[in-house]
Structures are given as C-alpha cells and as structure tokens.
C-alpha cells in the first residue's frame, strides 16, 4: 500500500468521520475516535455500515478492539482491501 493510497483512504474516512462524529474537530492521523470525536458504540456501528459500503469491504468486529485513532482506522481499511 502506497502513501498515495493511504492518503486516498484517509480523505474518504475523513469525510465519513466528519458526518458521523458527535464532536466536530479537525481530523488528523492521531485523532482519537472516542476521546476527540465523541464516538460511542452505536455511532461507530452506524459509521461502519457506511465504511463497508463505500469501500465494498467487510469490517470484522474483532478489529474494533484495536481501533483508537484515525490512523488505526485507515490502516485497518487498507489491510482489508489488500486481503480481499
């Protein structure tokens, strides 16, 4: 996965996060989904549905345990795309 691809995914994720996040703050690599953006479990699930549609992927719930920052999220999506 190249930096460009990371950047492309980041831009799409940024748009989704801004739409779903309860708290509006600038989205950066190290932005925390819970502490900075105010996501709770329900909001995360809503967003994941759309992430799955946008990237045409299946996001395993097991990955939620290691999802903390935007960087984590983008890298997880990258990995799922690579493996699919």
């Amino acid at each position, binding site marked *: 996965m190249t930096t460009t691809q990371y950047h492309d995914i980041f831009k799409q994720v940024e748009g989704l996060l801004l739409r779903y996040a309860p708290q509006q703050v600038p989205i950066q690599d190290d932005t925390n989904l819970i502490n900075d953006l105010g996501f*709770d*479990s*329900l909001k995360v*699930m809503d967003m994941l549905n759309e992430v799955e549609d946008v990237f045409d*992927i*299946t996001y*395993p*719930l*097991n990955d939620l345990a290691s999802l903390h920052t935007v960087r984590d999220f983008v890298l997880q999506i990258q990995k799922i795309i690579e493996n*699919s």
Partner: protein
Amino acid sequence: MGILDKLNAIATTRQTLLPEGVDPFNVVIEKIYSSTEGSIAGQKVILAGTNNYLGLTFDQQCIEAAQESLSKEGTGTTGSRMANGTFSGHRDLEQELALFYGCSNAIVFSTGFVTNLGMISALTGPGDVIVLDADSHASIYDACKMSGAEMIRFRHNNMVDLEKKLKRLGPRTAKTLIIVEGIYSMLGDCAPLAEVAALKQKYGAWVMVDEAHSMGVLGDHGRGMAEAAGVEQEVDFIVGTFSKSLGAIGGYCVSNHPELDLVRYVSRSYVFTASPSPSTIASVRQALRVVQSKPQLRTKLWENADRLYQGLEKLGLELGPDPGPIVAIRVATREKALFAWKSLLDQGIYVNLVFPPAAPAGMSLLRCSISAAHTAEQIDYILKVFSEMQDSFSN
C-alpha cells in the same frame, strides 16, 4: 485512577433516573400474585413486561411437579453437569426436548445466556467465522468474542447484506456459522428464516437460531420460527431458554449433528457451572408437556398480542414492525420514555424501559410483553392508559 473510576459514568446516568422515585433498571417485584399481577413500589400492577408468554409460572401442574421433585430430590444439585450435577431428570428432559424437536441430540444448560456462551464458543474458534445479525442478544455477542472466531455483523434482517458478506468469504463459508434469532427481543420482529436458510444452503455455511422468544410462540407445535418457516431440516443448531414460555430458568440446544453430544466435554459454561436444580427441571418437563398438549394457549397468546398491537397502532404510536407477543413502543427521547414508564407504573402497569445500546438504532423503548394469561380486561386497561398518555410519546 482506580479500577472503580469507570463506574462514575454509570453513577451519573443513574442519578438521572432517580428523580422519578423508582430505578427502572432495579425494580423489585415485592409480591407476585399470578403470572400477570404483582406489586411494585407498594402498588398492585399488571405485569406486561415479563416474557411469560404462556403464563406457565403459576401453572398448577408445573408447580406440583416442582414441589414433588423438591421433596424427593432436594433443593439443588451442587455440581456441574459434567461432575455430580446430572440427575436422571436432566437426561430425561434432554430426551424429551430432542423428541419435541424431532432431533437426535439435545443438551440442557443452566441458563439461556450460558447456553449461547457455551454453544457458540464450543462450536467456533480461531480460523472460523461467525456472521451474526446486528440486533443479536448480548449473550451472542459475548459468546462470539469468547470464541476467538472472526466476527462479522450483518444489518438487522437485511438479506442483501448477509449475502454480500457470505459471498465475500468465498470458500471460508464452509467454516462459517450464521446466527439469527427467531423473534428479536427488543422490537419483537422475526428473522426472515426461510431466506437465511436458503443463503446458508447456497453458500455452504452453518446456521444457528436462537428461539428464546419464539419457542412456544411460533409454529403449529410451538417449536418456534424454524418450524413456522418450514426450515427445521436446514437449521443446524437451535438454542433456547426455559425462562420464557416454559416459565422457569435454564437453556438448551438441539441438533441432528451427533457431534452435539461432544460439546458437553468442551463447553466451559456446561462444565464449570452448577446444573439446574431438580425442581426446576421437573417444572420445565411439565411445561414442555403443556406446550404440546395445550395449543390453545398459543392461540390465546396471539389473540392477546393482536389485541394489544392493533390497539396501540390505532392510537398512532410508533411500534415494532411485526405484531407479536413483544410490542415495543418507540418514544422520542430518553427523558420522555422514563417519564412515560413511571406514569404507566403509577397507573398500575409494569412494562420494560429500554435505552440504547440495549435498544437498537439509538431508540428508547417501552417494551411490553404479552401472555396467554392476560385477560381482555387487562389489555383493554393497558390500552386505555396508553390512550390517555399519547402526548408523552411524541416529539
């Protein structure tokens, strides 16, 4: 920072519940008069939130069976099924459940919750995949986490999403367990089980159905959604509970896979917890006989359920999608739901209050469950009170 700090948020939330005088999530039923009446906060109430679908908690024959067992076999087994906790009644009940479902094998567990924990974590593990409905019960989610299998969620009752996810798995579907519920506990809607079974066949997966809220309720013989949908042969594992239609406590799994019997040796919630007391087993065995011998109870249950659902629908309330014994009323906000719940209690009606995340999609619900034992007068009284409170539910 200490280990208790995380509970501070709960304490704050609980404070918001207390101004109404009764904690809705810590209700004490001070007296129980029948399967439909009790006393809460010093007041006699109609119990309309107990999952006691056939009203068998006060069935005379069930009580007598339990009393006889209590006298003859004592108060408990004091051991797990694997050790000293399997009496002849436990084995007899397993045989009777297998016969009832027309399956070769059955296992009895101590509760419905530990049935899911024990079955799902025994059947699946690392390298396997579980595809579960998004609105699945907490016991299913916890079991999936315990299993170590890959967990994939599909949108509630959305067969397009389920198929998309099965298709993406490719050959891994051979090691994939699909999990759905016959009737979903919060909104009371049914799984499209015929479609689930067709997808299971198409993609070569496995399927488990939790009939906790549908056993005794659906199907010509009360076997649940798999019977009602005509797909019992396609369902690999049926799990259920004794704590709803059968009026006691415990759980079970039935299957035609002979390997089910081996689950006894690897299921930690079977091996490491005490078995149901003999008197519980005795009352469940009698309740199972009642389910089979009194189909009129199911007829009455559905008459009552339709009476409540249609009555509330006429009031213009926003209800769960399917008429049935669980009738969920959506309320605009948590605050309104709490106020309405307390108002109902004050007027002698107990229902369940459900907040997210227990309620799906961020909804706040007043959840009623109806019994065959409710009288038409009780249901009409519930409808009358709801009609007087209509303004409480809207935006």
